[in-house]
């Protein structure tokens, strides 16, 4: 029952965007990711962004799929197809479709007249009716609606139905009944679309070969894998969106890979022991306290949290900095301030993490751009934390952490040896006349430590109060300064150990664009679009703090640079200025902080409007 008014008939292959509007808790998310997964399996670059509420059931939720043959998979703001399954948001959802686009809706009930945009094609599928007719249980009727609309979309954009069918069979391998209903529902929607609409629509998929060595993974899972491969054994954590899944995954992975079989278990005893201990703490202060205790004892330990948790850890982070205890923190950033929007993304903990705690403190930060970097950087975090004996933060965010991204397969080099930093064992101690905690610094200003349990010669008393290089309590200016001065130099020395910035230069560029983290894809797409429009820009993505000299050079080489980041206060720009000494006026803020993943359009518009001025 399509209302043919403004149909756009230009055929676009592997280049379109779909938005699906649902109610949370109804089972739609599985159906939506099924679509995205199928497209991925067809070898086409794709992304899926889950825009969900901070609530468990009953509120509006959206999912966006962007298909792009050139790999531009940042968030699109032009939707070719809207799957409008939530009558509560019909109005805004229908508003959201590009002119000439399509709306798929449940035609079991008629659409209000006023919703009918003349420049959009409405595709009604009687989903509820079909499900009532085909399924008996109320629960199934709700659930299968999702699979049915997915089936319709499969037909409409030309996804390989067999592939989707296989995916369903894999998912429900263990449950025949459910497998059956899912398959039926898929066909219901698929067939209805085939029969009633001209399938495929002008925008459609066609198989490609672009994802063969890629995977679909979210950043939190990848980070957890990184911690597993890094050899982390202890973690203290407290649940918080969007970081919780890091620890959920780490727990699951440990249960899978870290169980030591027990030869002859006593009756009642489990047949294995856990080579890990994950403690759900009473709060974030306790979580970081546990990490410090374990790291002090020589275990690789970490926590994962989000902004409010970092705020609470503020005091103990100063203790770790000053006493030189390694710690790895994964901050999956969300929209602040305060509780803010827990299910929206932002990059607004940069300054907090860089300088967390009272007094003069500086920390090391890594900024992954995607799940693959979450995996790799997580491992590096432990190496850097132990090498430099200090807290290291990985600043992920909700978009990276909770959405599935297409990234190259994760690989592991079995020759990897963890950098445990300068730790003296009893043999080392035996060869020494005496041991003092903060003496004998190396070229990177790191001094060797001992672990509790070492020979008494290596015993010392950690303290967050003023201490001299021997670790002895002091209130003497010079002795105090000697230690904190070394800490500053040590921090600076870590610059060459954090991942180097990614720089791409283009002939004729006068302007630079600097960004970080998950803005990567959108900014790259924008750089290309700007070039098409005649504005040639160099690109730099910083990946770690402290900054290598190249960061300053990049700014200085350009008349000015745009700094694209997802916070209100231009925090990266501030940090670059303070820490490299480059003139702040050479860096123009380009900020997007509404809580959604960045899209190239925001960058292009931002740059162009400033260039026009």
């Amino acid at each position, binding site marked *: 029952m399509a209302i043919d008014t403004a149909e756009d008939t230009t055929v676009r292959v592997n280049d379109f965007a779909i938005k699906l509007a649902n109610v949370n808790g109804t089972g739609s998310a599985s159906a939506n990711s099924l679509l995205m997964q199928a497209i991925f*399996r067809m070898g086409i670059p794709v992304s899926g962004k889950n825009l969900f509420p901070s609530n468990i059931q009953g509120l509006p939720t959206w999912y966006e799929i962007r298909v792009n043959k050139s790999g531009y998979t940042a968030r699109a703001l032009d939707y070719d197809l809207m799957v409008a399954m939530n009558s509560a948001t019909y109005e805004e959802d229908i508003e959201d479709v590009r002119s000439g686009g399509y709306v798929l809706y449940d035609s079991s009930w008629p659409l209000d007249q006023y919703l009918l945009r003349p420049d959009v094609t409405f595709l009604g599928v009687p989903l509820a009716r079909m499900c009532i007719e085909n399924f008996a249980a109320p629960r199934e009727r709700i659930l299968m609606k999702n699979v049915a609309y997915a089936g319709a979309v499969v037909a409409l954009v030309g996804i390989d139905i067999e592939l989707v069918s296989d995916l369903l069979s894999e998912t429900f391998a263990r449950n025949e009944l459910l497998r059956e209903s899912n398959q039926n529902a898929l066909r219901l929607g698929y067939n209805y679309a085939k029969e009633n609409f001209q399938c495929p629509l002008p925008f459609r998929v066609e198989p490609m070969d672009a994802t063969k060595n890629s*995977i*679909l*993974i979210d950043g939190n899972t990848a980070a957890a*894998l990184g911690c*597993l*491969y890094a050899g982390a*054994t*202890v973690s*203290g954590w407290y649940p918080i969106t969007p970081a919780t899944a890091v620890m959920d995954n780490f727990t699951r992975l440990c249960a899978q890979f870290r169980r*030591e079989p027990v030869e002859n278990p006593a009756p009642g005893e*489990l047949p*294995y*022991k*856990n*080579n890990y*201990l994950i*403690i759900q*703490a*009473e*709060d974030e*202060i*306790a979580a970081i*306290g*546990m*990490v*410090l*205790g*374990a*790291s*002090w*004892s*020589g*275990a690789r*330990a970490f926590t994962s949290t989000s902004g409010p948790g970092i705020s609470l850890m503020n005091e*103990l982070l100063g*203790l770790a900095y000053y006493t030189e205890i390694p710690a790895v923190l994964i901050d999956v950033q969300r929209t602040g301030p305060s509780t803010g929007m827990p299910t929206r993304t932002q990059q607004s903990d940069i300054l907090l993490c860089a300088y967390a705690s009272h007094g003069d403190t500086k920390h090391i930060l890594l900024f992954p751009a995607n799940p693959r970097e979450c995996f790799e950087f997580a491992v590096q975090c432990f190496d850097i934390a132990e090498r430099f004996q200090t807290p290291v933060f990985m600043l992920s965010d909700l978009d990276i952490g909770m959405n599935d991204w297409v990234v190259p*397969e*994760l*690989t*592991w080099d*079995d020759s*990897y*040896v963890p950098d445990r930093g300068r730790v003296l064992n009893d043999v080392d101690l035996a060869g020494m006349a005496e041991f003092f905690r903060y003496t004998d610094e190396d070229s990177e200003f790191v001094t060797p430590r*001992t*672990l*509790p*349990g*070492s*020979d*008494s010669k290596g*015993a*010392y*008393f*950690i303290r*967050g*109060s003023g201490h001299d290089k021997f670790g002895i*309590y002091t*209130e*003497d200016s010079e002795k105090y300064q000697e230690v904190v001065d070394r800490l500053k130099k040590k921090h600076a020395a870590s610059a060459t150990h954090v991942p180097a910035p990614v720089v791409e230069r283009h002939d004729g560029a006068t302007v630079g664009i600097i960004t970080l983290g998950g803005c990567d894809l959108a900014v790259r797409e924008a750089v290309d679009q700007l070039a098409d429009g005649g504005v040639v820009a160099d690109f730099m993505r910083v990946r770690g703090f402290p900054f290598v000299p190249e960061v300053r050079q990049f700014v200085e080489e350009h008349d000015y640079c745009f700094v694209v980041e997802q916070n209100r206060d231009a925090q990266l720009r501030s940090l670059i200025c303070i820490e490299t000494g480059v003139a702040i006026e050479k860096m123009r803020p380009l900020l997007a902080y509404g809580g959604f993943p960045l899209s190239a359009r925001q960058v292009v518009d931002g740059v162009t409007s400033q260039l026009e001025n």
Partner: protein
Amino acid sequence: MTSIVKPIIPLASLPMNEIGLTIRDYEGAVSTLCAGCGHDSVTAAITHAFWELSTPPHTIAKLSGIGCSSKTPTYFVRGAHGFNSAHGRMATIATGANAANRELTYIGISGDGDSLSIGIGHLAHAIRRNVNMIYVIENNGVYGLTKGQFSASADIGSRLKKGEPNAMAPIDPVLLGLSMGATFLARSFSGDKAQLVPILKAAAAHNGLALIDVISPCVTFNDHEGSTKSYRFMREHEVKEIQTDFIPIRKEIHKSLNENDATEITMHDGSVVRFRSVPSGYDPYDRQKVEEYIRERRSRGEIATGLLYVDESALDVHELNNTPDYALNTVPYQKLCPGSAELAKMMMSFR
């Protein structure tokens, strides 16, 4: 400067313990606490207990928060590993350390401010997790290091140095422990080494968190306004006064509590505290009775002391989490990393 290296004077005549060490080997730096501070007596008892136990010093990890009490780990077992952390957070750090290395003997020293105010949540949850450690609260009813404010264990009606009487009921860490499912609860008096040392030894032997509430008088801030012995009392100008400028030199109070009767001990400010040791035949395994006993004694103005409650059957944090009996920090990396082949296999599930 609060830790001064104590000259080790070899005394050939000192008795040796099972591992050939003398009591001197269990001492630490010279205390910088006020002369007469109860905390120093607790330090002496701890020194003694570890010596008697023949615990190798390097297998001891001593942790603390912030406060006068929390300074004391520097003053015992110099060969042990120490961590003077942040105010109220000792329990969290001890939990993490214990998680990484279950093979050491953990002793945490805290104050009533450290444990019953800012750190009460961590204490409660460490008890619930049953972290295998000795947890000593050096309880003086005041914030010593910040100069004499009431703590949450200050008694109703007591008057702090600067004025208003305290009108809130004190928090009793033993009752708190009972409500949190503690597995070892004891109370003693800093001056009664005869009672405290065995309790410390029992605590070291206990598998789980052993909480010891030690009443340990602060000689400086029990110099109450109401007391006519107070130097302060005689001054006129409160405004300009430099608080605690003069602190008279006092002696530590030493006194063994009677076996079967209440013992009255006069504090430095003249106040009298009535301690009562648990009677012989007392059953520390019956949680309900324990509670009853403590409350009953309290209602008579007495403080019950001794090993008040113990439950040897409970699992500690490692048993609850099914970890191996070796320290996690000793597991070789090869065992921890699943390797490239497993990763490659796993990649299949992400397609």
